[in-house]
């Protein structure tokens, strides 16, 4: 599936209290990371419905990343644990359908971890770039519409 000049699309869901703040901090410190990360701020990692992740992959993203507070530090007490469970389920579903489950990533990045934010974005983009485009988004081209 590897293509020449492949430029991955990665949708990032960042919780308001930790990972969004870390992204702000990374920006303020002018830490560079690839523009392939396309961010959206959500209030809590627990509000991310598995549908959002699947939808992103379906609509063209090569990967998704969900960033939340460290275990025990959730602004909403236990939201990150709920997120962890949801992500585990999404990964299991992807894997059992034969898709690459590493295209959904959950990371704990606290509000003071600007450098970690940049590092994770760099590493994950490099990883996905190495892995090639996701085949999940080509589902539409598998002939679905024609049956209709």
């Amino acid at each position, binding site marked *: 599936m590897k293509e020449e000049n492949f430029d991955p699309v990665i949708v990032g869901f960042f919780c308001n209290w930790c990972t969004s703040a870390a992204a702000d901090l990374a920006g303020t410190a002018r830490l560079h990371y690839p523009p392939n990360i396309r961010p959206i701020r959500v209030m809590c990692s627990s509000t991310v419905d598995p549908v959002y992740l699947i*939808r992103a992959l379906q609509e063209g993203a090569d990967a998704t990343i969900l960033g939340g507070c460290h275990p025990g530090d959730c602004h909403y007490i236990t939201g990150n644990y709920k997120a962890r469970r949801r992500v585990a389920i999404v990964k299991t579903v992807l894997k059992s359908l034969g898709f690459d489950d590493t295209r959904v990533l959950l990371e704990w990045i606290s509000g003071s971890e600007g450098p970690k934010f940049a590092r994770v974005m760099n590493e994950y983009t490099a990883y996905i770039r190495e892995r090639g485009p996701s085949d999940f988004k080509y589902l539409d081209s598998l002939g679905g519409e024609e049956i209709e």
Partner: protein
Amino acid sequence: MAMKRIGVFICHCGRNIAGTVDVKRVAEEIGKREDVAFSTTYVFMCSQPGQKLIEDSIKKYNLDGVVVANCSPTLHERTMRNAAARAGLNPYRVEIANIREWAAWPHEDNPEAATRKAIRIINATIEKLKANAALHPIEVPVIKRALVIGGGVAGMQAALDLADAGIETVVVEKNPSLGGNMIRLSETFPTLDCPQCILTPKMNDVGSHPNIKLYTYSEVEEVEGYLGNFKVKIRKKSPYIDWNKCTGCGECAKVCPTVLPSDFDLKMATRKATHIPFEQAVPFKYTITRYGVPPCNAACPLHLNAQGYVAAAKAGRFDRAIEVVWENLPFAGIAGRICTHPCEDACSRRFVDKPVGIREIKRFVADWAEKNQKRYVLHVEGEKDKSVAIIGAGAAGLMAAHDLRKKGYKVTVYDKLPVIGGMLAVGIPPYRLPQEVIDREVQPLIDAGVKFVLNYEVNEKNFEEIRKKHDAVIIAIGTHKERHLNIPGEEKALHALEFLRKVNLGEKMDLKGKKVVVIGGGNSAVDAARTALRLGADVTIAYRRVREMMPAIPEEVDDAEEEGVKFKFLVSPAEIKDGTIKLEKMKLGEKDESGRRRPIPTGEYEEMPADLVILAVGEIPDASFAEKLGIEVERNRIKTDEYLRTSLDGVFAAGDAVTGAWDWVHAAAYGRWAAKNVMHYLEGEEMEEVKIEWKSNLRGFPELAYPAGRHDTMKLDLKERVSTFKEFNLGYSDEDVVDEAKRCLGCGGCAQCGLCLEVCDVNAIDLTMKDEIVEEDVGAIIVATGFEVMPPEAFPELGGKYPDVLNALQFERLLAPSGPTAGIPRRPSDGKVPESIAFVHCVGSRDPQNGVPYCSRICCMYTIKQAMLVKHALPNTAVYDFYIDIRSNGKGYEEFYHRAKEEYGVNFIRGKVSKVYKVGDKYRVQGVDTLTGRIVEVDVDMVVLATAAKGSEGVKELAKKLRIPYDEWGWLKETHLKLKPLETPVGGVFIAGAAQFVKDITDSVSQGSGAAAKAMALLSKPQLEKEPLLARVDPEICAGCGRCKDQCAYGAISIDPVRHVAVVNEALCEGCGACSANCPTTAIQVVNFKKGQIIRAVDVLAEVF
């Protein structure tokens, strides 16, 4: 209804955004959208003209929604929403697209990509915005009270400012007194004020202010609620003293025998377990420190308060010591003689040299009591009409009988032997445990009404009668049946139990001149051998392993050898003949399940003369007895559950009959548990699972160890010993027992010896006091938890392990006029006044490899101050100051530095110290002078390390409870370092002082006042506004499944029992959205974060181009 006339305002932010992102192109691209009515750029959207531009455009183009593309929403979301509101647009129809921190800055190296990303972020934001509803903030009441966490200088300042403004303020301080780190200091730079003089007025004001409610020795346990409406649970740690009664007289400390390191003086001094940390403490109340259950107590199956009676013995108060033993155990003399002392095996003193002689101390006080005609009295706590039968008057039976009788039950003990005591009486020879000790310790039970029926064998015939007569039965028959070897000639041998029983019951036996061989290596073997010896025999113990593997108590083996018992190891009996015994030689093989190496037969034999062979190869319960009664038996033991219930209703079992042959203390412990569960059974209460051993990781204070080694007890003269059955161990002398008790390391802190209770005139002391949880409702919280400095031990290469190498805070105590050395520094190791001192800056600071990456800010100044104070106190002492840079950036600081250099002659050396090590009596400091480029070596008497500062201990746990962020060093994170240094992301929670980052007193006080002002602004509002971004339910599609309810961490969701739909309590909902992600029907959604909105935004973000 989706918006159709959106305005998009793109900010240049000077060159911050426009320098990277092509803002003109962004405006053009966005302007092409059909739903965008107007798009433009401006140099500073947050400026007043910028805001005016938004206001005017809303009116001019009749905009129904606004996206401002600028910086992080944490900065200007409110500005832009207010601007929109002024123009009549609902503020919740304004969204921020963060194109500065999220596009321009991280991608400044790639303008094209940054521009495209900015466009994409704005497009996604528009998609989200389009379905935003117009909302109005929810008004919530505000509780006009504040909480300040931390009673240091910042916290006190905040509390006083709030209280003076008329706001009732709760102060929580974890230490017993206010004062924080500042009150520990000698003097303050650059004014050289004495903190004891300048801080105590503040402390007293806080202590007595009518608007301040002070909780010292307390910690925040739990925080619930939100801005303006917090509910805080505070744990008041038990000081074991009622502070309402305590007058601070100090009599308790005078008699307290437990000496601990002073935490206030950072181990530079000692204090008693009951203490006031320092003279000026507020409140001036005594606190008793208990760290937990000490290892001795935890290891004791009966959980005797060993540290307690040892402490009383240390004070020479044997009368008190015996009372402490008696609180838990009437059989002090028995235990003091024959206990296998698990307490000593667990004693922390063993890491220093040898365990404290706990058993012998107990034995001493038991004998002391007898000598002084002090007898235990069993006080029955109210008669009950139920009765319990106990079968067996041994260790387990006696313990159970005592405990049951104490609680008022009628107790009858049956035993087939003619004496009370079971194995204690017939299994243990009188030279170890005289019968009169058993008799005198059983007497209180008889006096209290326990009935003993001796010479009475319980069997299948009379058992039912006993069951009928009593409400419950405990079987504690012990292990009176011998194990057999099944070798030829065994019938010619005597079994050890039989032998000991005969001798103990007075049967005459003459072994004069006879050769006796005892087979076995346990306590019974040693007892039998020493008994035979006293009857005149020539005794050899033959054991199949080696001496170190003998299960007998090692001291007993030593005693036997001393008395003349011979040993033969690695032999196993093969055949007993007339006059001889045939032994097979053994060798050691692999380890078996007991962890000892297994003996393996070699096939070689030897014979040795033996007029009598005594077999001591183990004892087992007489299981046939139980079987006959219809009780289930397992592996020759009576089978019980974890509550010690047998298979028969109301019949319990305890002791060796349940566990197999063990020792007195375990049997007694099981007896106690059986009694406990019998009581539960009789009262219809829930049973308790047997738990013999507890855990304790306390290790005491080896640095305070009393230097004496373990004392030996006095023994009977050897000649007399081997020819009579007189007790051979005479115990400690009066002097030795006190000296031995002093060896205790005080692991548990307060030992509960109770000496203080005797001297407290106001009866303030309550050693059973528990922690108390109180609740306070407050509207705002200020966290001022301060800092700590790294311990010197963290820097072994700089000599941190040596006693005279201190950190700066420890040295402050030595410089403080109120400190342990009255302001003249002395070496902790030998009390010598130092003739030379080296100060080392930047220890751990600016050193990410060994400590922290940051500068700890205060060290330069306090080190200069300390150097100066040393010169004040000891003008002839040489002072070397190793620095990297002097950072003296405060008012009057640089001048202070110059004074130290010029007026006081402090020797400043610019360079890093690489090593500190001991040379004779001195410490050699090895470093480099970077100004001359030379290696410097100085030998000094003391070294002071300016170690790095970190957030105080426990602050991370507190931050988690408050849900405020912190970094890896324990500093609390502010909302914005420059502009919101006192705020946290959690509304209503503020930070002040060194909790945010290490700072000097001036800055801490300023921040304290600042945070107070912030809190006042919040609390002065009549009502607060709460974000309306909460979960809402569409009852039309809600199925009432309750999955949302399970997700809610706040208990905000309930299921309406009538309509069977979910209902959200708006006061509790925080708007996290966990519920919505779990809703199978999209019935529950967070307003303005609806799934459709997010998915439309995701579609934009995921799109490939």
